[in-house]
Structure formats: C-alpha cells, structure tokens
C-alpha cells in the first residue's frame, strides 16, 4: 500500500484519442494511475471504454495522444515509441490482460499447468520442476484443485477458466493488469467468488489495475477510483464511493439510479 501514496505515477495518459474513420472511439482522455491503484472505467456499451483499454494496453494505436509507463528501472517511456521486442516483453511479463471471454486469454488445447507455465518460460525459466511447482502453487491460489493441472481448459467451467486466466496473468508478478469485464457472463455465485479472489490478490500483490466494467457493484467492490465514460469521453471522475453516492453528471445519476436493489 505504501507505493500507492508515492508521488510517481505508474501510467501517465495524455489526450488519448481514437477515431474509427470519422467515428469517435474515445476522445481526449487524460489521467494518471498510481502503483497499487485500481481504476474502474464504467459506462454503457459503445461508450468507448474498451477502445480506451485497448489503446492503453498497446493493442490498438491511438489516433492522437501519448501514454507513458514507468519501466522497472524507474524511467517513463512512451509506449508507442517502444520497439516491438520491448513491447512484447512488457506485455508478457510486467503486464497482464484479463479478457471477458477466458478462451481469448487462454490456450484452450494445452493443459492448465502449461497455460500458467508458458508465461514463466517467456521470462526465461527453463527448469521443468520449478515451472510445474510454481504452476501448482498458482492453481491453488486461484482455488483450482492440483489434480486438474494436466487437464485442458476445455473441460473447465466458465468460472474455473476465468480463474485459470487470472493465474496465467499473475504468475510473472506483473505490476499492471488490464481487465475487460472479468466477471461478465458468469453466474452471480461464481462472480462473487471471483470478485473476492480478485480483491485479495490485488491487495496482496499491490497490483495496479485498469478494469472496464458496466457493473457498478463490481466497481464499488474493487476500485479506488472511477472514470465514467459516455460517447467516447470521460464525463465524470473521482473517488469511487463519492461518484456512486454523490453523482454529479446527469448521465452518472442515471447510471446509479438504474441499479436494481436486492
């Protein structure tokens, strides 16, 4: 937690804009993300939140704007000026990306253990015993029984696949993890388990997270800060409970008042 209050941001985003032809994906988005901070991007479908997430994670080049990231050596680097090899290394080691559909983030035809071990090999681990031991440990941390290590994810339930995807991402101890609707499409009881697991892992590992969600309950449970997007622009931002309990913009008030109470 101590890093969280340091003065050096991990990610510095300035004026990020992405057009699709003459249609706006996202426009003029600026913010800073600090070590250990969880930022939720909320908004309805088509508001530009996934476009922004893809720009941040170098999966989609912005039309304009700059994104700088603090490398492990402390230097701020412009992500779109990194060489291809540097960028790939960053994505495989220092970053994680949790997709809504686990099949997009896993290799479905290799075993659970290999899914986790693959990222370790990418950072140079060649010792089979060590890789298997670490993979077993991580399966345990995401509550997958050790005897499933040789099964492939096609035989896993949706919730298990999502937990496996999380283990695969976290095994290299990334500092920044992007999540795109990580609980979308799961049963509520499965969601609750996954959320609790994410909450604990994020706190224990001191991860910085940018999470896209349309579920305000997910944002409340996991995030420190919220950005509300509409029509490609950030319309309101602030401390999570402040934005949810005292929303200022008409659209945010509509979002908050649309939550079903149980």
């Amino acid at each position, binding site marked *: *937690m101590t890093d*969280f*209050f340091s003065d050096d941001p991990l990610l510095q985003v300035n004026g990020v804009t992405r057009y699709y032809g003459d249609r706006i994906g996202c426009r003029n988005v600026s913010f800073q993300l*600090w070590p250990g*901070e969880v930022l939720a991007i909320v908004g309805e479908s088509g508001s530009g939140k996934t476009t922004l997430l893809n720009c941040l994670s170098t999966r989609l080049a912005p039309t304009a704007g700059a994104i700088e990231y603090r490398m492990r050596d402390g230097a701020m680097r412009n992500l779109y000026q990194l060489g291809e090899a540097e960028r790939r290394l960053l994505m495989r080691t220092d970053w994680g990306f949790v997709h809504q559909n686990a099949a997009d983030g896993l290799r479905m035809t290799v075993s659970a253990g290999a899914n986790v071990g693959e990222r370790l090999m990418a950072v140079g681990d060649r010792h089979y015993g060590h890789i298997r031991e670490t993979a077993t440990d991580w399966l345990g941390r995401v509550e997958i029984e050790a005897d499933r290590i040789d099964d492939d994810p096609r035989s896993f339930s949706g919730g298990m696949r999502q937990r496996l995807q999380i283990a695969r991402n976290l095994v290299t101890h990334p500092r920044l993890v992007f999540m795109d609707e990580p609980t979308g499409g799961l049963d509520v009881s499965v969601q*609750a*388990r996954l*959320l*609790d697991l994410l*909450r604990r892992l994020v706190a224990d590992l001191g991860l910085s997270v940018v999470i896209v969600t349309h579920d305000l309950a997910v944002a409340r*449970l996991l995030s*420190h*800060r919220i950005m509300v997007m509409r029509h490609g622009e950030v319309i309101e931002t*602030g*401390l999570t*409970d*402040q934005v949810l*309990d*005292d929303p*200022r*913009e*008409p659209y945010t*008030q*509509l979002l908050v*008042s649309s939550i079903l109470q149980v």
Partner: protein
Amino acid sequence: MPVRLYLSHVGKSFTMHLQGGTTIPVVSGVDFSVGEGECVVLGGPSGAGKSSILKMIYGNYRCDQGQILVTVGDEIVNVADSEPRKILQLRKDVIGYVSQFLRVIPRVPAVEVVAEPLILQGADEGKALARARDLLTRLNVPERLWGLPPATFSGGEQQRVNIARGFIAHYPLLLLDEPTASLDAANRAVVVELVAEKKQDGVAMVGILHDQDVRDRISDRIVDVTAFRAEAA
C-alpha cells in the same frame, strides 16, 4: 484543547438531473470546530443535513463550498479539495467512520472484517485478530459466528460487527453515524464505554445520535444543524 477538525463556511446542495435539474439545498455556512478528546453531537431533526455533513467530512459527499480542515500531525489538510488518493490515505490513518450498516464483502469472516482496518495501518496480524476477538466479545457477538462471513447474520449482529470494525483502529478523528440505533441497552452501554476510551486517547469525534440517553452520556457539546439551513434558491 488543540483543534482537530474545523469546518469553515461549508455548503452543499444536490442537483437532481433526473427530476428536471431541481436543486435541493442541504446546508450552507456550516461553521464549527472539534478539539482533541472532544465529542460533538450534531443536533436537529431528520433532513436537517446532519448525515450530509458527516459524509462531507469523510469525503464521501463532495463539498461545494467552504473548507473542511483536518489537523494531521503538523500539517492541515483540506478534505474539500483533496485528491482521491489523499482522501484514501486519510481514511486509512486519520479519519474513521462508524455506521450502522455493514457493507458485506463476500466470503470474508467476521473476525477478519473487524481486524482489517488495524492490519491496513500496519499492525501485526495476530495482534489485530486478538483485538478483534476482544471487541466482538465485548459487543456480545457469539463466538460461533466469528469465523463466518457476516452476510447471513441478523441486522443487529451485522451492526455490532461494524461497530467493532469502526472502533478497532486508532483514528485521530472518528465520525459516528447513529452507531447505537436499534441496539439493546447492554450493547449501547458498551458503545458508550468505547467512546469514553477514545476520548481518553485524545480522539476528536463528531456524532449523530438520536438516542437521548446515549447522547447525554457522550456529548461534550451539541451543534444545532438547523442554524445552517440552506434556503432554496
């Protein structure tokens, strides 16, 4: 008595965009201070804005006008214009909030819910859990419940878990949002004791307490919020 909290010309209104942009004035010109070891109770009828004032001090509601100054060591921080990160830091170490409603987190056992604020302040986990068990005992939460997540507890049990969580850590400024509402006499007496102990430790407190008996026993001063009524524009 050194001042711990000072509200200067604080004002707040809500603009309800879903109701045609109606502005609802809540309070204006709120001005009072609280010293170390002092418990100030906000007085006035429901709807006078007591809860909004408490929520602004905690940074949960935005403060439209004025300053909310908190003394932190030899620094003075204005909550009203602090960055989210700063407010989170204040909530970890400086400002505590005791309410009657527990926000339940799935799967976390009651004893860990209670111990968490102390662990976040850097306390040893074993000691924090021991202190949590001690508080749960004092607040008459049955031991068989300690290891269970509070989601399935009764309203009264959840409330007492939340009170234990609110009182476990040392915060120089503690906000009490009707902590004794619907508690029985024995547990009300425990809360009165806990507040007395906080005063001994020099904690400044601001409270909303509808229970006349508890209010008489813990308040050093009453600030009448109706004096800060905002007029509709």
